């Protein structure tokens, strides 16, 4: 367990030393969501209707930005080999990497989303549901993304390939995540969507580190 915490601490420490990477993804999220009203028009009713979808798609793309670097630096400098050779099972260490990725790319989005939601005229209840949905959904994005990042490790054209592999798998997260907010706005209650999102998160938390580990071992061979 200490080793997992060490992995998380190291990744956070590294991110603090090169802040620009984390901030770039955040600014990307802010800019993309702000561009939509400019493209669509300032009509509040319309903006309110598209807000959940826009915020979620932007969150999806912002998470994608950091994915490729998830294992690339560790692969290049040999840290990944040391992780494989550590007495701690690789699956746990990979879980630590995924957790760190979420703290750096998902958690800031969760915290930032309500501010951006205000741009779209969402009420307080909807903002709460949006945050909750992102809180459940962004770890799911990191977990699924890790599989793709491990599969494309060290390949030419890895970045584009990664999005081709991962984005279709993000569809359920997008649907339930954005759907939760829409359902709340429509007065249907977001409970169903949120519990399905939680179920998917549990499923992914169980399988994704395992699949990522297998993919990493293949990439290292």
């Amino acid at each position, binding site marked *: 367990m200490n080793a997992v915490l060490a992995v998380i601490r190291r990744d956070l420490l590294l991110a603090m030393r090169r802040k620009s990477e984390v901030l770039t993804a955040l600014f990307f999220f802010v800019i993309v969501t702000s561009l939509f009203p400019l493209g669509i028009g300032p009509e509040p009713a319309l903006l309110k209707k598209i807000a959940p979808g826009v915020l979620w798609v932007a969150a999806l793309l912002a998470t994608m930005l950091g994915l490729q670097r998830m294992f690339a630096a560790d692969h290049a400098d*040999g840290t990944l080999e040391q992780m494989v050779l550590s007495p701690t099972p690789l699956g746990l260490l990979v879980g630590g990497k995924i957790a760190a990725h979420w703290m750096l790319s998902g958690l800031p989005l969760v915290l930032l989303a309500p501010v951006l939601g205000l741009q779209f005229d969402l009420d307080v209840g909807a903002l709460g549901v949006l945050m909750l949905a992102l809180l459940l959904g962004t770890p799911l994005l990191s977990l699924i993304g890790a599989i793709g990042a491990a599969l494309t490790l060290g390949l030419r054209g890895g970045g584009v390939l990664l999005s081709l592999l991962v984005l279709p798998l993000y569809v359920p997260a997008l649907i339930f995540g954005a759907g939760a907010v829409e359902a709340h706005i429509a007065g249907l209650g977001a409970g169903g969507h949120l519990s399905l999102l939680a179920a998917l998160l549990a499923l992914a938390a169980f399988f994704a580190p395992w699949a990522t580990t297998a993919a990493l071992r293949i990439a290292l061979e």
Partner: protein
Amino acid sequence: MLSIHGLSCVRGERRLFAGLDFAVGPGEWLHVRGENGAGKTSLLRLLVGLMAPAEGEIRWNGENVRTLGEDYRRHLLFLGHHGAVKEELSALENLQLASQLDGDALADRSALAALHRFGLKGREELPVRFLSAGQKRRVLLARLVTKQAKLWILDEPFTALDVKAVDMLSALIGEHLADGGMAILTSHQAMPIPGGRELQL
């Protein structure tokens, strides 16, 4: 004791070596030599378990390392081509985080002692990217002092080191062997460490 039985290695479509047998016991070390591309690094990667052998077995104290898993890796220290050193972190942080990855906390005192032994006094807190190539290598080699491992597997440990550091490392390997440790390393130069055997690939 590490023993190898009928080991073969296939990379892509090429067979690098086949039917390799050897054993390394306490206090012994093995010098793996061969031309570029002969499979030295592949052999080391097989030994630590980063690659699966095409044929043959690697045993630690008589048991296959595949079944031992972490019970084997606990006794193992592998230093590869790449530094596994993070440029943005200081030497001290690198050393301590590497130990934590192995599950042991490393006190400041022993970490600093290890760095000083490798002549990095006064540079412990500096981000590693400000160090020279040889100094970076020394940060990595400080792991040899801080990790308690029976079996050292070192890929070209002498590259980028000056004469003083080479002597220091040789002495360190000598001490390790005297304590009943084992070492397998690749290197192009001959080494003045007693108890060694050569393996030509």
